[in-house]
């Protein structure tokens, strides 16, 4: 186990910069998720930590060593790849023991470590099989087994669940989290799925366009997003955002006036952000026309029109309203988010 420090990391392909000075501190044993849309640079950053991409500028440290110029094998890391990258011509046991074999471990030690990892991941019955004889979930487990068998200082995961179906993804998510809790190894995990990020991370790093937008604990990011991008990216369904202006009478958006907490400075160009679950139904309040009702069982998701804006609400009660009917909404002002429309930065 070791902390990982990224200091002013930049990366360019030719004259095209893709990472613009990334600073991240990952504590010893921490589970950090790099999340962001496709092309934001999160996988490139992970590959730079692994040593599979060169660093244009800045320093990467693992433990007390700067590893910029070290080969992947000398960084004491293990990586789980998106497509598993299991060696097709080797059995599960050979795949798992391969790195130990090439680091001069004895046969007894390899066997002991492989069996230990296989027991943790429930792979014992599969040790003599080839990757082609395994299901997607089993392959994923073998890829993790290959990573843990060496007892590295850092685990790196590059979108490891993206090839699995939704149900298996939930199961494997729990397994990876459980594995981290059991082994306590520093982990850097890349995903574009914000649900994975929220459920697994000790700390989330939200990236966009080669920059870090915000770093924090999952609920901190959810409750106090630093800017419009994070507000829109974290949370499903996404936060409702309505452009307009802050006035003493409330927030004036196109075709609607929304309540505001007292004492706000007027602003001509602002965004009103409210999460779907922070809207409740009331007898009076903001009038909204129902467009679509989606009963989920435990809750009901309703898509509505407020003025000229589309707003989504998630309600615990089972709503009987039909499309075209008018309901009244009351936002929880304690959970209100206000952003500057020009910079995207948080105002409250």
């Amino acid at each position, binding site marked *: 186990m070791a902390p990982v420090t990224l200091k002013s990391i930049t990366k360019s392909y030719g004259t095209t910069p893709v990472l613009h000075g990334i600073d991240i501190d990952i504590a010893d044993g921490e589970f950090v998720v790099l999340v962001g849309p496709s092309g934001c640079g999160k996988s490139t950053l992970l590959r730079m930590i692994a040593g599979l991409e060169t660093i244009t500028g800045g320093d990467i440290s693992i433990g007390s060593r700067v590893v910029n110029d070290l080969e992947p*094998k000398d960084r004491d890391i293990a990586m789980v*790849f998106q497509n598993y*990258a299991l060696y097709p011509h080797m059995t599960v046991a050979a795949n798992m023991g*391969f790195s130990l074999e090439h680091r001069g471990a004895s046969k007894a030690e390899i066997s002991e470590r492989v069996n230990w990892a296989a027991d943790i991941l429930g792979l014992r019955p599969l040790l003599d099989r080839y990757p082609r004889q395994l299901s997607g979930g089993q392959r994923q487990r073998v890829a993790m087994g290959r990573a843990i068998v060496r007892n590295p200082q850092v685990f790196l995961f590059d979108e490891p669940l993206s090839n699995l179906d939704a149900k298996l993804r939930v199961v494997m998510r729990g397994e990876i989290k459980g594995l981290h809790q059991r082994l306590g190894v520093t982990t850097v995990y890349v995903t574009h799925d914000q649900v994975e990020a929220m459920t697994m991370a000790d700390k989330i790093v939200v990236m966009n366009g080669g920059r870090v937008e915000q770093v924090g604990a999952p609920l901190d990011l959810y409750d106090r997003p630093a800017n419009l991008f994070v507000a829109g990216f974290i949370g499903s369904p996404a936060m409702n955002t309505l452009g307009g202006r802050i006035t003493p009478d409330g927030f004036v958006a196109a075709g609607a006036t929304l309540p505001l907490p007292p004492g706000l400075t007027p602003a001509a160009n602002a965004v009103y952000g409210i999460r779907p679950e922070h809207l409740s139904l009331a007898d009076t309040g903001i009038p909204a026309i129902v467009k679509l009702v989606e009963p989920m069982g435990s809750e009901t998701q309703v898509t509505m029109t407020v003025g000229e804006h589309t707003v989504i609400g998630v309600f615990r009660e089972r709503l009987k309203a039909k499309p075209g009917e008018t309901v009244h909404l009351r936002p929880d002002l304690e959970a209100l988010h206000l952003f500057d429309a020009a910079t995207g930065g948080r105002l409250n």
Partner: protein
Amino acid sequence: MKTDLSPRMKVALYGLMCVLLIPFVFPTWWMLTSSVKPISDIFAFPPDLWPRRFDFTTYARVFELQPFARQYWNSAYIAALVTIGTMIVSSMAGYAFARIKFPFSNAIFMIVLLGLLIPSEVTIVPLFQMFLKWGMINTHWPLILVPIFGAPSVFATFVMRQFFIALPGELEEAARVDGLGRFKIFWLIALPLAKPALGAVAIFTFLHSWNLYLEPIVFLSSTQMFTLPQALTQFTDAYGGAMWNIQLAAATMTAIPVLLVFIVAQKQFVEGLAHTGLKG
């Protein structure tokens, strides 16, 4: 592939296939049957599809008239060395062209491929002069070295390159994380996965060497050194006329390894070419 042909269509289709097969099968049939006919029966008209008389002494005569066992050995060991050498050279070159980034790699590969456009007849005289200078005339070295570093190897390099290009990059990256350097990645990961392509390379290289005719007649002069295609032309009577039945008996024995290779390895051959994207 599942087809829904009616029985009548099936009969018609198989009938057509049998007719189309005749030009391919007939020469082999003619060779086999003529090799056990007395020479006078070979040119009988109308020709006999089944021998009227069987004469198996032709096979013994092959070994009396030529050092045929020695010539057989010459062809076998030359083909084996050429096959192994070509597999080594082409797999390494193909891997380098496919997976290692170096300046002008694509341009260099195109230049290498251009070598395929030069007919061997064009280069045979300079090659003869080169091997003469090296004291290798009437040795087997030219027959081993020319294919390993010549056109067959270029084609084999192309096949191997196409295979290695399709190899997932993540496998190499996983191997790098596991502690392997470039050569070990090639040797322990890429090469074992390239078995189908290597199989295809081995088959066509072996066949090319086994059937080589122009180079042996240029570089070899003593019958002890001859290879089989060259030896086949030597079965003549005192007047220089071909001893057809004996020659065809020798040809039959020459064709056996080729047929065996095809029968045993045809699946491997097709798979190998399919993996390299060369299959139509």
